[in-house]
């Protein structure tokens, strides 16, 4: 240990070795040798069953969150919908979880697993709610916890929401290591894993994702109990893809095959996620396209060899909303429904508000999460911060919003719109990324089948994309 070369290149070259020790999963057994791997086997063998997870989560007070009907938001949406349109809007109040978001579900299984394997502590690389969730679960389990967060720009100015995350992680007794902007956070993360021998509580392990399945499952059961039917659409705020993947798997495990899975992200087009300057010019730190699109089109960019979050397998639609629209709906949630909740859940709520107007009155749309709110994590500090950073605040047509330059509040709630992101485009990018990352000129039957499943498309679609890329399918 003492004589280890800790230079950037040396540590990065030890990545696989460090990861293997820190996660306790042998991913090799699920590999095929090509670009495909056995996803379902990985979920089965390296994860936990739904029943096991329900019991792990209930022992830490996670899950069984309330389902609330948004009667006033529904009434507002119906004012702008054509006659007979305007689905009933519900939300699942995930803010009721111990650390204030659905991330507690992921953290509960990760920390349980770490403790079972005998690790003394856990480390998570995250600037968001997941850090709070891991810190909270580690506190309950009596494990040590380090949260590594990208927090400040080069002037040590921090996004208010991330500053709040630092506070809350420290409140739960965790050590918070803060970094300036850049993907080399991963290097510091590896150094810490090597130094401490702690467990990598990655967001993207099979058990982490399986932890979210209970959310989808519970949701369906609650609707069946209360209304005797399944919801028509589930709206899911999408960033790294675990929320979509876990929820959708849970919905399917409950047998709700007809329920449509709809992702939603805040549109941050044009802002570079690794840019020191852009870092503090965004008003949302997750649930945005800056994570949502890269992770959908290449899930295996994550901090584990194989990402268990594979959103393209599950998304039926993917909608984008504007920052100004989400702030507007956050206000509506407070003054019309009497509940204050944090930014990420309100992203899919904004999309639901618009989408409900296209659906029949007797249909049901459900937003599967809320998160806690407070200092830093609230429209007021975010808008003040945006103003300090020279962002113009306007009322008008949300379509004129330019991320990093202005925030446009809709001048009327009827201006909040459904905008579909073309999933076929995402699927094409995914296939390109897979081919490029593995440097393939030809692929076999197994890889071909894998690409179909991983994009939830069909033979013809994948064959067309591959032939455009000049890749042969061997049979």
């Amino acid at each position: 240990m003492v004589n280890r070369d800790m230079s950037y290149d040396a540590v990065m070259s030890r990545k696989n070795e460090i990861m293997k020790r820190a996660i306790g999963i042998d991913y090799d057994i699920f590999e095929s040798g090509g670009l495909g791997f056995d996803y379902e086997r990985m979920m089965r063998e390296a994860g936990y069953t739904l029943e096991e997870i329900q019991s792990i989560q209930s022992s830490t007070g996670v899950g069984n969150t309330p389902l609330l009907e948004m009667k006033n938001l529904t009434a507002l949406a119906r004012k702008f919908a054509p006659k007979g349109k305007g689905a009933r809007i519900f939300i699942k109040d995930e803010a009721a979880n111990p650390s204030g978001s659905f991330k507690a579900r992921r953290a509960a299984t990760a920390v349980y697993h770490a403790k079972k394997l005998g690790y003394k502590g856990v480390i998570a690389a995250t600037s968001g709610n997941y850090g709070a969730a891991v810190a909270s679960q580690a506190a309950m389990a009596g494990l040590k916890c380090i949260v590594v967060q990208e927090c400040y720009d080069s002037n040590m100015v921090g996004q208010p929401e991330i500053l709040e995350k630092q506070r809350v992680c420290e409140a739960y007794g965790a050590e918070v290591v803060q970094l300036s902007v850049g993907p080399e956070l991963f290097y510091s993360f590896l150094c810490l894993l090597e130094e401490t021998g702690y467990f990598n509580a990655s967001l993207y392990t099979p058990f982490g994702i399986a932890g979210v399945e209970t959310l989808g499952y519970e949701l369906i059961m609650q609707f069946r109990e209360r209304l005797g039917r399944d919801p028509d659409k589930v709206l899911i705020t999408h960033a790294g893809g675990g929320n979509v993947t876990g929820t959708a798997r849970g919905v399917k495990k409950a047998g709700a095959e007809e329920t449509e899975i709809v992702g939603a992200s805040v549109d941050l087009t044009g802002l570079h996620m690794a840019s020191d300057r852009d870092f503090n010019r965004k008003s949302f730190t997750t649930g945005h396209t800056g994570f949502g699109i890269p992770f959908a089109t290449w899930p295996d960019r994550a901090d584990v060899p194989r990402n268990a979050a594979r959103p393209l397998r599950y998304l039926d639609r993917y909608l984008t909303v504007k920052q100004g629209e989400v702030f507007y709906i956050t206000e509506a949630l407070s003054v019309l429904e009497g509940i204050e909740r944090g930014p990420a859940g309100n992203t899919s709520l904004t999309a639901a508000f618009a989408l409900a107007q296209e659906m029949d009155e007797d249909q049901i749309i459900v937003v599967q999460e809320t998160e806690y709110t407070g200092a830093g994590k609230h429209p007021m500090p975010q808008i003040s911060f945006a103003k300090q950073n020279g962002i113009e605040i306007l009322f008008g047509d949300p379509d004129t919003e330019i991320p990093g330059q202005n925030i446009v509040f809709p001048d009327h709630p009827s201006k909040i719109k459904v905008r579909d992101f073309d999933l076929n485009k995402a699927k094409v990018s995914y296939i390109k990324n897979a081919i490029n990352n593995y440097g393939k000129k030809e692929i076999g039957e197994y890889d071909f089948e894998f690409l179909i499943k991983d994009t939830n498309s069909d033979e013809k679609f994948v064959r067309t994309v591959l032939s455009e890329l000049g890749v042969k399918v061997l049979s």
Partner: protein
Amino acid sequence: MDIIKKGDWVQIHQIVLKPEERAAHLPEDTKKVPLELWVKGFALDDGKIGDEIEIKTVTGRKVKGKAIKLNPRYIHDFGDYVPELTKIDMQLKKILFGGDCGE
């Protein structure tokens, strides 16, 4: 103010990677600045702000760096008052429940 006593809660700062040591393919602005790190812990010796010191974090790790703050406060809050948000609130109530602003 600037004096640090052994055992005090201190935030330290490190340069992890100098600009020339940073990863390839970074945006231009990020490439020009170092990768920096901040962490808090208990000072292992007396000293003062600005000194290179060693701390012990809450997980028991020993870390060296430049002491930048003693008992650092959380600076995030609810920001300045944003009148635009109140305008939204009044509009929403008017559309749904009718009546005028200020009623």
